[in-house]
């Protein structure tokens, strides 16, 4: 006896869209999220989103979270059930997961499962990186925008991708000082409009630079930075000591696939997608037909494409079970078209490269089963 038809693990943008799409088609859906508030990373994103104006462009991330959560709430008591504050801890190949909720372990059996567990922030190796005051940028964004806590006054931002640029801007909005943003790459990685915003606020961006060391007695007091040559080697004599109390690391994300490894799912190593990702097809289906992956877990990208992937997998999973309605195939086609249109620009070069590697699926990049095996 199954407990639910479609189980969605993770209530961020991808998971919310997956749950809505599957339940709108008529499937019985259970959405489980470990936080008390739905929305995943959206709830700390106070900036306006890019994308299509007809959809969510121009809306602040946090407002998208509110909108989607309200839609979820209005479908509840029908064929959609949510479990908030529940964490999936085990995953078995016989369509069963175990989750912990209110300090007890419970079981859910499903027909289809859509994993939308997101990604975790990367760490950087340098002496002193264990001192209090070294944070991941996304963690600072959560503390600042969700909990209303500013972890320090003066910041060094490492990483000029979108997260580094956006969090720098939001730190300024919160009244903090950002000394500079640095990045080892020769070009700004994030959107240039974000870079222009913080440059107008007087924040320099140092490219081909990195952090060498964090110094301090019991907490971060100084950061030592250096210029890098074209082979990414520190250039002697270019070291600078910055007085900061927070070092913020925005150096990329790793897909969170640990749960899926528990049932021996096929993983592939594709650096363009963020490292090890579950192998999946264009409908987000993995090497096992009952398992789908969407959002950053399937390849680190951003919320707009994550939402499209969520809708896609939600529809396909519901169709699998037998919820077939006129026009759904066309809707699926339209989502695929939107994804490819969205990725048609030069900034999506990397993700497209990653997806094409996924398609060719060459032997070298494929690792079956446990990634640490």
């Amino acid at each position: 006896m199954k407990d639910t038809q479609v189980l969605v693990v993770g209530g961020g943008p991808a998971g919310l869209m997956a749950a809505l799409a599957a339940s709108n088609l008529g499937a019985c859906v259970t959405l489980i999220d470990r936080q008390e508030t739905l929305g995943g990373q959206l709830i700390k994103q106070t900036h306006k989103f890019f994308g299509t104006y007809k959809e969510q462009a121009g809306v602040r991330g946090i407002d998208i979270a509110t909108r989607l959560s309200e839609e979820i709430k209005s479908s509840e008591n029908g064929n959609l059930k949510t479990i908030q504050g529940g964490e999936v801890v085990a995953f078995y190949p016989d369509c069963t997961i175990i989750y912990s909720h209110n300090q007890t372990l419970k079981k859910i059996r499903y027909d289809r499962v859509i994993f939308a567990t997101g990604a975790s922030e990367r760490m950087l190796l340098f002496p002193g990186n264990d001192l209090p005051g070294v944070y991941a940028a996304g963690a600072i964004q959560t503390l600042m925008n969700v909990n209303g806590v500013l972890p320090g006054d003066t910041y060094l931002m490492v990483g000029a991708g979108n997260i580094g640029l956006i969090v720098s801007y939001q730190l300024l909005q919160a009244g903090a000082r950002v000394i500079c943003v640095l990045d080892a790459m020769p070009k700004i990685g994030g959107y240039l409009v974000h870079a222009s915003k913080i440059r107008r606020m007087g924040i320099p961006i140092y490219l081909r630079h990195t952090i060498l060391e964090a110094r301090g007695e019991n907490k971060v007091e100084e950061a030592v930075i250096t210029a890098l040559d074209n082979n990414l080697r520190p250039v002697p004599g270019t070291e600078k000591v910055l007085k900061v109390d927070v070092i913020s690391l925005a150096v990329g994300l790793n897909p969170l696939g640990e749960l899926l490894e528990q049932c021996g799912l096929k993983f592939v190593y594709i650096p363009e997608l963020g490292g090890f990702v579950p192998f999946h097809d264009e409908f987000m289906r993995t090497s096992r037909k009952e398992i789908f992956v969407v959002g950053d877990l399937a390849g680190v990208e951003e919320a707009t494409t994550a939402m499209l992937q969520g809708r896609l997998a939600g529809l396909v999973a519901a169709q699998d079970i037998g919820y077939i309605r006129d026009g759904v195939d066309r809707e699926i086609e339209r989502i695929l078209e939107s994804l490819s249109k969205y990725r048609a620009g030069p900034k999506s070069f990397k993700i497209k490269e990653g997806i094409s590697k996924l398609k060719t699926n060459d032997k070298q990049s494929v690792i079956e089963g446990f990634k640490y095996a």
Partner: protein
Amino acid sequence: MLEKTGVPTKEELKRFIPSKKRRCEGPYAMIECFEEIPCDPCYAACPFKAVKEFVNINDLPEIDFDRCTGCGLCVSECPGLAIFLIDETVGNNQASISMPYEFQPLPEKGESVLAVDREGNIVGEVIVDEVKISGRKAKTPMVTILVPLNQVMDIRHFYLKRLNERR
């Protein structure tokens, strides 16, 4: 250069500056968007179709200054905060620049603030002419400052004097 500095060069800015003649005729929107990213609110927000329809959503905006009335609706819609409403016809050897301003506290009308250029350098003191909250999808404060006419292409932000000591 922009991709290394985050600051557009004069050359890069050219494509978004209207003709001399148009600049003397009234307000216009200057879209400082130089990178092909998937985004179209400037096109969708314009009631006069002054921003050409995008073939590819990643296209750079292209503005028809004959259609642009300087209504300023696009300023609060741009997710990149990259649109400035400029009026070089206010007289008195001045120009007005309206820009999105997402900081608290907001300045007050008549307040003297520190004008800064695209690199954040303070280039003078200017007066705030108007503060309003607009935006269809997300409320965004829009602040208008009066600047010397010869600095209209340089000033793109301002700092409040009362907060500047902290910097």
